[in-house]
């Protein structure tokens, strides 16, 4: 299951009528959307959306029946255990497999402001102004200690660019912090504070 699927299911499960609908599904052999809606006093469209979503994720099964003029669906329980399982490592595999064989340095005339930490040896935040003139908005990013040390050693605009590994080495940053370093490099690159060479 990926994040989007989990988010969609969770959104429906968090509704206040979710528990009531599932109670009905468990109590009945099968039930139609209109029967459930009338039993619970909820709008039929709401119940229909809920049941269709649960069916899409195989939590509920649906069967088409043609008892009256128009065919309709009847719903019954399929899984008695609802599990939301996200493999975060697989989901965010690009964090550890992200290539870092490029050189970086600070971009020219960014206007970004780096604020020092108390001990004056690394940065605690970076503030970037997005937009032009009066419409510009301030975006302030709080940095982790590793990120703060990394950016402290970021080459100046007119200096020789260095690789991420070289800067981490200079700043004496542990390899296990690399993914958060790459994350901030990516973010600052997108905000045009860092140049990749």
């Amino acid at each position, binding site marked *: 299951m990926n994040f989007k699927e989990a988010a969609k299911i969770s959104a429906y499960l968090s509704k206040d009528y979710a528990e009531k609908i599932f109670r009905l599904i468990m109590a009945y052999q099968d039930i139609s959307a209109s029967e459930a809606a009338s039993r619970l006093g909820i709008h039929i469209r709401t119940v229909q959306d809920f049941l269709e979503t649960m069916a899409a994720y195989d939590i509920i099964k649906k069967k088409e029946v043609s008892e009256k003029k128009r065919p309709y669906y009847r719903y019954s329980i399929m899984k008695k255990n609802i599990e939301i399982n996200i493999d975060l490592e697989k989901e965010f595999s690009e964090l550890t497999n992200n290539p870092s064989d490029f050189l970086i340095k600070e971009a020219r005339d960014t206007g970004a402001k780096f604020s020092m930490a108390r001990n004056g*040896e690394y940065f605690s935040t970076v503030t970037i102004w997005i937009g032009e003139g009066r419409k510009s908005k301030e975006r302030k990013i709080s940095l982790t200690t590793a990120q703060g040390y990394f950016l402290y050693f970021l080459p100046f605009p007119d200096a020789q660019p260095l690789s991420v590994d070289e800067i981490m080495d200079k700043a004496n940053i542990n390899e296990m912090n690399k993914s958060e370093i790459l994350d901030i490099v990516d973010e600052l690159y997108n905000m045009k504070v860092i140049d990749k060479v």
Partner: protein
Amino acid sequence: MRHKQKPDLDIKGILPPITSVLIFIFVFILWGPYVAFNTLGSIILLYAIFIFIAFYRTRHIWTLVSVIYMLTFSSLLYAMAPHLTIGYEPYFPPHVKILIVCTVLLFWWLIYLNFTRKLKWRGRDILELAAYHVEQAEGSFTERPLPTSKVNVTKHELDDFAHYFQKKLLGLVYWEDSRVVFMPLKFKNEYLALYNPNYNYHEKTWVAINYNGNVSVNFSKKDYLDYWEDLAFDALCNSLSDVIIDFLQLYIEGKEVRIIDKLDSMKINVFT
């Protein structure tokens, strides 16, 4: 020799004497010479206190001459006041005449100390020295510190040099938990730095050396724009760092006179 920094045409430095004279004239017109001289004497006494604070902070011995001059001048004004009446020729008793002589002698001593750069804050000289070999480069400025190099120095040597740095008016020093911050101070910028308790030196130009020997540099935008041209910023920061490290090494070797020689060789105007 064309300096890389623009000449300092700021009138901040002469605002206090101008203000004092204006107050003196105003009071004289309204209340006569007795009140005017006493008022001016009080203003000069206040200056003496401020200058003493500067001496207390830096332990710069020649600043004491300024303090003594201000105290003498203030005493002279107080002593003269009762003997001044409009329409009558003043007669000064002997102690007033002695004070006049002392004030004049101290004044000329101060002029001599000024011309020999003994009372000059050397921040401008340091920044000129840092820029000496740095080439022009557009768009390279960035407002953040740069870690530059590492020095082999003990805490004791660093603290000693820090006291020397202040004592010779090279700038002010701020002691933090794990490092010492050297802030070159330009003439006419000392008022805020010395007397403002909320002075934020982090935004100014400084070189910090931590007790592990790591050196970092910060260059303020104001000081950077004080150069005629945009200089290669990375090179400028490294150069400033090298200047301070060089001074530190000379101090440790007992050649502190060479520090002053290097600064004097910049031939910065004594009044800037």
